[in-house]
């Protein structure tokens, strides 16, 4: 009899614990309640759709860092990571890394220095190359309106083009490029 009461009490404790804890453990929504958040910034990342006939975007949260160049790195890292959704395709070649970022305030030019993979692993084609440049430019201009021009570099050097169709040797005007 005593044993049964103990069992009942334990069962009661388990049930109460379940009722109390389960709704809180279940990841029902935004993570903001779980911890004191660091300052986060919502940013827009542009991809191509998988058939390469239009642009699509995703919103990501990145830590709001102090330095402008660091912020650019974090945002473009999200583009390089690729899309969450299989209907989208980041037009960024495999193993691409953004090595360095410089901001030239006088001319409002953002200099992006990529590794060799950015050109070496590019699948080519006017469409593929167009979307590579456009994904970077659209993502930059959506999140950093102060940027007027983007200069692409590969391993620290200016290059003629990524895959032979579009000139990127000179800074690209983000508003006018098409």
């Amino acid at each position, binding site marked *: 009899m005593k044993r049964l009461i103990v069992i009942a009490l334990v069962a009661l404790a388990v049930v109460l614990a379940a009722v109390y804890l389960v709704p809180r453990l279940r990841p029902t929504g935004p993570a903001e309640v779980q911890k004191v958040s660091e300052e986060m910034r919502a940013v827009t990342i542009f991809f191509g759709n998988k058939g390469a006939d239009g642009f699509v975007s995703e919103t990501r949260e990145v830590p709001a860092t102090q330095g402008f160049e660091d912020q650019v790195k974090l945002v473009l890292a999200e583009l390089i990571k690729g899309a969450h959704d299989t209907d989208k395709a980041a037009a960024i070649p495999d193993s691409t890394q953004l090595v360095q970022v410089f901001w030239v305030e006088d001319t409002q030019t953002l200099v992006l220095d990529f590794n060799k993979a950015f050109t070496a692993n590019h699948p080519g084609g006017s469409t593929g190359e167009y979307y590579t440049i456009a994904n970077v430019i659209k993502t930059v201009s959506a999140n950093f309106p102060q940027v007027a021009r983007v200069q692409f570099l590969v391993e620290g050097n200016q290059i003629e083009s990524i895959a*032979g169709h*579009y000139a990127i040797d000179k800074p690209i005007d983000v508003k006018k490029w098409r």
Partner: protein
Amino acid sequence: MTVRPSTFALMLLVSAAALACAAPAARAAAAEKSLGVVYADGRQTEDVPLAKLDKESDELFVSAYDLARVFKATKFWNPGNRKLVLRIGNHRYMFTLDTRVVVVDETPVLIRMNVRYRDDGSVMIPLEFIEGVLAPRSIEKIVLDRNRLLLSIGSPEYNVTAIEIVDDKDGTRAELTLTDELLYHIDSDTPGILRLKIYGGRLNPLRFTVPVGKGLLNRVRAEQMDQDAYLFFDVKRGVQRYRVDFEGAGAAAAGAKAPKKLVLFLERGALPEIPGADFAGKKMVEMLDEGARRKIVAPVRTIAIDPGHGGSDIGRMSPSGVKEKDVNLAIALMLRDRLMEELGVSVVMTRTDDVLIPLDERVEKANTAGAQLFISIHCNGWFTSDAEGFEVFFLAPARTEEEAQLGREENASVAYEKQGAPDESGGDIDFILWDMVQNAYLNESSDLAEMVQRELNTSLGIRNRGVKQTGLRVLKGLKMPGVLIETAFLSNPKEEKLLLSTEFRERLVESTIEAVRAFQSRYPGKQ
């Protein structure tokens, strides 16, 4: 007696389970409304869930998470002091849970409803915040339509701004107001429909939809695509001829900032408007202005063909190892032979072997040979195997006419300063002029591109990706109309097979020749 405690435990368990089931249902019911959000920055329209949290009021709440996302805000949340900070644009908005105070920068502002905490962990902010606090302080235009639950953020810069339809005894005019003299293309491939494509056009489709007929127009519909704007004119059956042109094009160029009028004129035809008469399949004919569009083009006698890539630049390599440079060359050589045979024109090739030729040199070759057309042959590539179809490109100039004029003036002053010592390097100024050379031929280039596209569409049997205007390097500096054909995707196994088949290549070559024929008949040139 011994049974009772366990029954009690069982009862507890059942009621707990019932409780657990009921909770999600309640949550689902709360999130039944949603806010449509329309962006001007290229993001897709989306639906954001709304919740009604107060029994006394109908006010709807949006989560801080969604709010931060929609407005690209920086967000900081401290549950310790129950404060949430959103940084949107140049302002900082601080909310405190269960209060009506929003501190904007340093100034407290009162809203009618409390900011709430929802049991799923969201901080919920009343919509009133968007219209009452955020919108008046925003640089971007923010409009919240409460009736339709629609939020629009930012106002896109339209360059096609208005449409007016005028009808008189000669015919019907649809007058479009543009801020720039944009390139356009019109065709009547579908009987009864005139399709006007405005390259680089940006318009509000709602403002260009004319549902009620006037004169010879039944209705007008507009579509905004990523790059270009389209207008579809549903035309009465009696119309035989049409014309589209910028009104007073020469005079308008003088005042660069003055709005431009692009006018579609439908001629009141000889055919009577007979109700029920069947004119289906009847094509409308475009009236061509002999003077303006056709004068600069000489008769087509020499054609430059450019097989893309070559040598160490292999272009696209398909997963099975087919190299783009080889496919391009094979198709180009076939095109050369057939063009000479069927049209009796001479052909200059930018390469006939597997060698690397720089892009400027290709253009130089075509210019030096005095070719009247330039056709570049390529295979397309994409990051997955999904992309398919053919696509035809012509050049979008990197610089506007105003900038070019500036370049020419600078060039002249530099030449004046350096009399006797001509600047060999040229530098940026030469580059500007090089960019501008093709501008003189953009109308003809877009016509050729449309003609190639139309022919390929009827013969290739693969997806038509349309005509695109982009800043392709190989078309810069051409002193003749030029296009680049992306024949099909080597990254798509199905199309790779097609590209390797003689039959597909033959269809490709024959269609391209048909397009050149069509170009010749539209631009006969001065004999």
